[in-house]
């Protein structure tokens, strides 16, 4: 693509909205926010929307589906934290407080679309359809990711930061070359935007005009380091303009706004308008993992402030007021969440299958003579122990 072609592409999209290319690429002046923390719908002139940055409200059925996933997500976070305390799981990076982001990222995708999650995105992976015990496999200390990424179009959760954003770009590129309309959502956090691969991934996606949505959960901390020490940009969404793509900011605890934004983003990407950068403002309510002590770097009063902005109570209040949560609906949503929690409890109480003989499998498509030799040595050792 020539430099002119890139400019023309952005210009064409902005014309559809009747705004300038600059106004299209820059995030709206205010963060997009549809629901107040108490669950009331904000007046239209206070939603942060402006020409070209308008987001149709999701249907009641869609909101109920998202809310059900949200309740399950919260239940899973709390169940897993409990399992870690009971010693049944090795480690769990909880996304408590960020569940609305997780749900919207996965739920907006079609079956053939791909999700590229991080280690804190278990709830998104679950929402993409991966079986609960498969999602948590690596956190119980097994050697593999637990699921078949191709069966769910969901990549293994990435521990090295933002490296998976480039894989997302590659999946989208391959699909585009074959004439398929696959959309890819690539997730990362605020701290990760400092990594070099964040820059390379956004740049590659824009240069090749690929349908990748970069979804940043700005939860305010990279373990202990606050956002102010990661970036001096006006917002993370503003970084988009430097790559020639559009950026937007959204209240990451407002499930309705997230669903509205991500639905439009996926549609725009699928229509060939190139990549997008979405920054969701949220908060990591718990420590980085069970091994972290967040009292060393943040005040409890700050955490308390965010309780009032909780995504689950906010969405519930809206649906209650709208008369969408009947007793039977609530009962079903609760029962479904409990069922997933029970699956996790039962599964984690089984001993993990960790056969040391398997250590040599899948290093290569076929074992090298050297690995076969080393495996035989270990098998011999184990046999002598058993004898």
């Amino acid at each position: 693509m020539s430099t002119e072609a890139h400019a023309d592409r952005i210009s064409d999209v902005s014309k559809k909205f009747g705004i300038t290319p600059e106004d299209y690429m820059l995030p709206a002046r205010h963060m997009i926010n549809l629901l107040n923390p108490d669950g009331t719908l904000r007046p239209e002139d206070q939603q942060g929307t402006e020409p070209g940055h308008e987001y149709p409200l999701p249907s009641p059925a869609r909101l109920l589906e998202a809310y059900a996933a949200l309740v399950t997500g919260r239940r899973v976070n709390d169940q897993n934290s409990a399992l870690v305390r009971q010693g049944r799981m090795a480690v769990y990076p909880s996304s408590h407080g960020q569940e609305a982001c997780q749900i919207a990222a996965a739920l907006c995708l079609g079956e053939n679309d791909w999700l590229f999650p991080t280690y804190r995105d278990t709830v998104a992976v679950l929402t993409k359809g991966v079986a609960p015990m498969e999602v948590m496999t690596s956190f119980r200390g097994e050697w593999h990711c637990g699921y078949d990424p191709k069966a769910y179009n969901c990549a293994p959760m990435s521990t090295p930061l933002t490296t998976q954003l480039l894989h997302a770009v590659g999946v989208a590129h391959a699909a585009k070359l074959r004439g398929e309309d696959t959309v890819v959502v690539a997730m990362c956090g605020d701290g990760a935007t400092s990594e070099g691969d964040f820059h390379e991934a956004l740049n590659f996606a824009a240069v090749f005009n690929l349908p990748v949505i970069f979804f940043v959960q700005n939860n305010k901390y990279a373990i202990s380091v606050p956002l102010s020490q990661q970036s001096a940009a006006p917002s993370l969404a503003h970084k988009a303009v430097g790559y020639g793509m559009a950026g937007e900011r959204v209240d990451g605890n407002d499930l309705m706004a997230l669903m509205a934004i991500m639905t439009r983003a996926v549609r725009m990407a699928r229509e060939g308008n190139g990549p997008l950068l979405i920054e969701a403002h949220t908060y990591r309510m718990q420590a980085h993992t069970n091994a972290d002590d967040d009292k060393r770097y943040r005040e409890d009063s700050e955490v308390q402030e965010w309780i009032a902005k909780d995504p689950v109570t906010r969405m519930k209040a809206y649906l209650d007021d709208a008369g969408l949560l009947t007793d039977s609906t609530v009962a079903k949503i609760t029962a479904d969440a409990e069922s997933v929690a029970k699956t996790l409890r039962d599964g984690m109480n089984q001993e993990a299958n960790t056969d040391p003989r398997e250590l040599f499998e899948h290093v290569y498509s076929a074992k090298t003579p050297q690995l076969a030799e080393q495996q035989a040595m270990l098998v011999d050792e184990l046999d002598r122990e058993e004898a």
Partner: protein
Amino acid sequence: MTATTSRLNPNVSAATARAAAKAANEHQPVTFGKALNTALADSLVADNSVVIFGEDVGTLGGVFRITDGLTARFGSERCFDTPLAESGIVGMAVGMAINGMRPVIEMQFDAFAYPAFEQIASHVAKMRNRTQGKLNLPMVIRIPYAGGVGGVEHHCDSSEAYYAHTPGLKVFTPSCVEDAYLMLREAIDSDDPVVFFEPKKLYWSKEQVDLAQLAEQYEAKKSARTEGQARIARPGSDATLITYGPSVSTALEAAKLAAEEGISLEVLDIRSIVPFDDETVCASVRKTGRAIVVAEAQGFASVASEIVARVQERCFHSLAAPVLRVTGFDIPYPAPTLEKFHLPSAERILDAVDQLQWEA
């Protein structure tokens, strides 16, 4: 998924291309670089999922011209330039390989590949393992490497040990024109990721090789496999020179000089560092009873060290002398005017041969 028109169908038939290549090559010696170029072209014809990308590999044809003419012949969907970012190139290749392609990517120079090291060590090497074999990454990372061309700093590293040390990667390095063709085709067809080291001083070396015939043999599966197979580059009986890549020609030169003094040296070209061919190496050393490992890379914690360890573990009772190494010094790669003092030379190899306790 709406499978519409694919952009990947080659518009050139394999037979036509081959006939043209045959006519052109009939009586012409072929360069190492041309053999690599032909292997890339033949792979693009043979498999629609092969894509080639990197810095300057499109219109320019690569700084060493290894991808010359491929964009013109196959289109910019099959061979294209990327932004100047090595981690991006490797990372995007990982995603393309996840989604059904066989990327062949070029790192412009050995030392320019280091920004991609995290992608290679954490993902390329481990994806198959951490997904229990569900995601394999059939990709080739081509790295022009080593010295002997008067290159300036950051252009002459022998970086093979970093990759050979990383489980999950295969590491190949050809040293002759025939192997340049066959080994690259094998690397591209491999279901495992291959780091493919091309000795840049050999790019312009010429041999009389019929590439069209080689292609036919390869595609009919009649050519011998090179993965995990060392090659006897020169048979001998008194001592074995174990070497690979750019050092093979130096070892052959030393063997020729030794022969004039009545010493018969066997030269083994390792070809496939990973997987390693213990069998051929040990058979040779058990036969000769003496061995020297020759490699350009600095010797400390090197592939050469590994080979010495393997040989003495397996062949101790056949050895008449300690296994020696002739390698680069443990220094940053020197300036062009000084590189001749750093690189293993035939003379330095012959000095090592003299130390193999012949009087005993």
